[in-house]
C-alpha cells in the first residue's frame, strides 16, 4: 500500500458521515457533561433509539419529516424516563442507569422476538429506510470527485449525506454556541460547578438538568440517524463502545467548548485510520493480522482516553479551570 492511498483514506475520514455522526453525538454529550456535568454513559442508547425511530417508521412508509419527529420523540421520552428517577440522585446513579438503559435498548432491539419490528440482530437493511432520504437529494445521479475523494452523489455513503450531515453539525454548533452564552446556559454551568448554590438561588435544578438531558438526547438521536444512513441499523454497532468513543472524542477536543466535539471527532478518526492503515501497509499479514490491527486501534483509543483524563482533562481546546470533574 502506498503512502498516498493511506493519506487519502485517512483524510476521507475528515468528511465522512460517521465522523459527523460522532460530532453530533459528542455535541449532545457536551450539553450533558460539558455544560451540566451529567455523567451520561449511555449516549449510544439515544443514538440507537433515534436510529430505530427513523428507520422503523421509514420502512413502514411514513414520510421523512414524520420519521425524524418519531426519532426525536423517542429520544425525548427516553430522556424523561431516565431523568425522572435519577436526576435527583448522585452522579453515580445517572451514569449506571444510562449505561444499563442503553444496554437494555440494544438487547431488546436485537432480540429475535422483535424481528418484525427491528429486524432482530440482523437489523434493518438500508434499502428499507434510505430511499426517501436519497430521493430528496437535489444532486444529479452519478458520482463526483472532489480533491482526493470520489463518492457517489446520492446513493448510500454519498456526497448528499455528507452535505446534510455536516450542515446539521454546523446548525448544532451554532445552537450550542447560542445556548452556552444564554442565561439558560449560565444556569447549567452553575449547576455543573455547584448544584446547591444554584438551588439556593431558587432555581429548579432538576428541571434544568432534565432540559439538558433532553436536548443532548435529541442531538444523540440525530447522530443515530446520520450514523445508520450510510450502513444499516444494527443494534450491536451502536453498543457501549460507541458511547466510549463519544466520550473519548469529547474529552479529546475539550468538554465545555464549542468546537471541541468537531476537533475531537475529526482528529480521532483521521489519526486512527491513519495509524491502522499504516500498520496494515507496513506490517506483514503474517506478523499481525488485519483483525489484530483493528484490536490495536482500540487499544490506542483506550490508552489515549486514559492519558487524556490523567494528563490533560480539559482536552485540546478546553480551559482547565472550567472543567473540573467535580462529583
Amino acid at each position, binding site marked *: 500500500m502506498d503512502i498516498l492511498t493511506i493519506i487519502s483514506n485517512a483524510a476521507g475520514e475528515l468528511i465522512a458521515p460517521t465522523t459527523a455522526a460522532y460530532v453530533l453525538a459528542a455535541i449532545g454529550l457536551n450539553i450533558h457533561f460539558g455544560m451540566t456535568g451529567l455523567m451520561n454513559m449511555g449516549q449510544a442508547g439515544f443514538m440507537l433509539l433515534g436510529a430505530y425511530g427513523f428507520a422503523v417508521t421509514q420502512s413502514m412508509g411514513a414520510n421523512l419529516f414524520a420519521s425524524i419527529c418519531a426519532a426525536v420523540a423517542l429520544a425525548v421520552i427516553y430522556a424523561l424516563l431516565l431523568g425522572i428517577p435519577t436526576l435527583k*440522585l448522585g452522579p453515580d446513579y445517572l*451514569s449506571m442507569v444510562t449505561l444499563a*438503559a442503553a444496554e437494555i435498548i440494544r438487547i431488546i432491539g436485537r*432480540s429475535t*422476538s422483535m424481528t418484525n419490528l427491528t429486524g432482530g*440482530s440482523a437489523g434493518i437493511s438500508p434499502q428499507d429506510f434510505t430511499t426517501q432520504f436519497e430521493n430528496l437529494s437535489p444532486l444529479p445521479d452519478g458520482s463526483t470527485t472532489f480533491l482526493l475523494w470520489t463518492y457517489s452523489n446520492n446513493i448510500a455513503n454519498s456526497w448528499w449525506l455528507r452535505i446534510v450531515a455536516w450542515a446539521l453539525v454546523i446548525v448544532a454548533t451554532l445552537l450550542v454556541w447560542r445556548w452556552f452564552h444564554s442565561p439558560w446556559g449560565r444556569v447549567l454551568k452553575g449547576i455543573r460547578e455547584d448544584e446547591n448554590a444554584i438551588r439556593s438561588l431558587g432555581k429548579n435544578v432538576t428541571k434544568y438538568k432534565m432540559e439538558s438531558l433532553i436536548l443532548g438526547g435529541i442531538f444523540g438521536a440525530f447522530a443515530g440517524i446520520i450514523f445508520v444512513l450510510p450502513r444499516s441499523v444494527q443494534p450491536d454497532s451502536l453498543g457501549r463502545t460507541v458511547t466510549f468513543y463519544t466520550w473519548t472524542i469529547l474529552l479529546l477536543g475539550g468538554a465545555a467548548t464549542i468546537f471541541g466535539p468537531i476537533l475531537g471527532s475529526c482528529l480521532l478518526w483521521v489519526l486512527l485510520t491513519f495509524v491502522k492503515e499504516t500498520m496494515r501497509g507496513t506490517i506483514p499479514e503474517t506478523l499481525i493480522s488485519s*483483525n489484530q490491527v483493528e484490536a490495536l486501534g482500540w*487499544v490506542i483509543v483506550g490508552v*489515549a482516553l486514559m492519558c487524556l483524563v490523567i494528563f490533560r482533562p480539559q482536552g485540546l481546546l478546553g480551559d482547565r479551570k472550567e472543567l473540573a470533574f467535580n462529583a
Partner: protein
Amino acid sequence: MTAATIRCRRHRSVLPPLTALAAALIAILMTLTISQPTPAIAAESVATCNPTAQNGCVNGILQDASKKPIAGVTVTLSGAESATTQTDANGKWAFSVTADGTYTVTIDESVAKKHGLGTNTADVEIVKNSFDKQRGVVRFDQSAGSAGGSSDSSNGSSGTSDGSSSGDDGGTAGTNGSSGERGSSSAHDTADATDKLSATLANIGARFWQQLYSGVIFGLMLGLMSVGMNLVYGTTRLSSFSHGEQVTLGGLMAYVGTQLLHWPLVISAVFAVAVGALTGWIQNELVWAPLRRKHVGPMQQMIVTIGLSMALQYLFQFFFGGDIKGITKSVPDSFALGPITTDAPTLISAGLAIVVIIGITLFLYKTRLGRATRAVSDNAALAAASGINVEQVVRIVWILSCAMAALSGVLLGIYLNGISWNTGATLLLLMFAAVTLGGLGTANGALVGSLVIGIVADMSSLIIPNDMRYASALAILIIVLLVRPQGIFGKAQRVG
C-alpha cells in the same frame, strides 16, 4: 439410534456467546409450535457458502459409512425457506439462506438405506447474526449409530450438533471446547431429549428448578466478582469499569496455565489468581494511588477505568484472538440431583465461591484489617484521623478485589467451558446492577444483589425470550433505583 435430530442440551449457560444451548431448546419448542412450515422465500443452492450478515448457511458432506462421498443425490431444504440441490463429486452440498429459523434437510430415503446412513432427515437452526448459529452443518453419516454401536452414547458425536460446531467443513461435530457450549449433555440427556419433547412445555416445573439452580450458581460467581468491586467502591468511591477485564484475565491466565503450559488445573488456577492479585497491586501503585494523591475525582478516575477496560479488552483480543478458549478440554459427567442436572466441577466451583465469600466476610468483620477496611469505607478521612493507614487498606482492597475477580474468571471459565476476550465485559453491567442493588459500598449487599441478579436473569428466561434475560436483570436495577435508591442494604441518605 436416529440421533440426527438436534442434540437437546439442558439450558444452563449464562453468557451471550453461550446461549446456543438455550436457543437449541427454543428451537425444539419452535418445532413443536410451528406445525406448518411457512412458505418458501429465497434459499438458494450454492457451491460453497460463507455466512455473512445477510445470509446463513446450511451445508454438509454426504458420504457413506466408510467416508466415501456420494455424488448426485438430491438434497432438499425446507422450513423457513426451501430449495433443492445435488451433491457434487465430493459429496458436498450447500444452501445459502436468508431467513433465520429452523430448517429441515432431507435426502431420499432409499439413498440413506442403500448407503447405510442412520437417517435421511435432519433439523438445523440458523440465526444469521449469532456467531455460532450462522452455519448449520448436516452430516447424515455421523448419525449412523448402528455402524459401530459406539457413537450412541458418546457425547459430541450425534448428528448435527445444532449447527454450532466451529464447522468449516462439517467434520467437527463434537468439538465442544471451541464451540463454547457447555458440553454438559450426557448420554442421559440426549437419549431423553426426544422423549421429553412433548413434555417440555408441560414440564415447566422441572425447568423452574433447573433455572433456579443455574441462577444461584451464576449469582455466586457474580457475587465473587461484585464483592471485590464493591470493596473498591467502598474504599475509594471508584466504579471500576475495568473489573470485567480482571475477570477475563483470570480465565485467560487459567487457559494459559492448563492449555499452553500444560499445568494441572489447580496450579493454573492459583497462577491465575496470583496474576490477578499482582495486576491489582501494580495498577494501584502505578495508576490509582498517584491519581488519588493528585486528588483526581472519582468520576474522572472512572473514565480512566473505561480507557483501561478498552485497552485491556482489545489486548486480550490481540493476544488470544476472538474465539472462546476452553480451560478444560474434558467434559464432566453430569448427574441428576433431585430435579436438577449438574456435574461435579460446577458444584466444586460453587462451593469454592461460597468459601471465599464467607472468608471475605470473616475477614471484614473479625480481623483488625477488615475492621479498618470497613472504617475506610464509612469515612476515609475519619479513619485516617484515627490512625488507620488508608493507603495500605486501599492497596490490600485492590489486591483482594482483583484476586477474587481472577478466581471468579477461572470458575466461570470452567463452569461455562470456556472464556473469551469479552466475557468479563458482558458481565460488567450485571456486576454494576448487583452492586447497586445490594447497596453501593456495602460488602454483603453485593452478594445478595448478585444472587438476585443471577436468579432473575436465569429465571426470567422462563417467561421472556431467552436473549432478553439480561435486560430483565438490568430493568431490576432501574426499578430498584426508583424505589430504594440506596439499595437493599445501603443506608438511607440524601443523595443530591
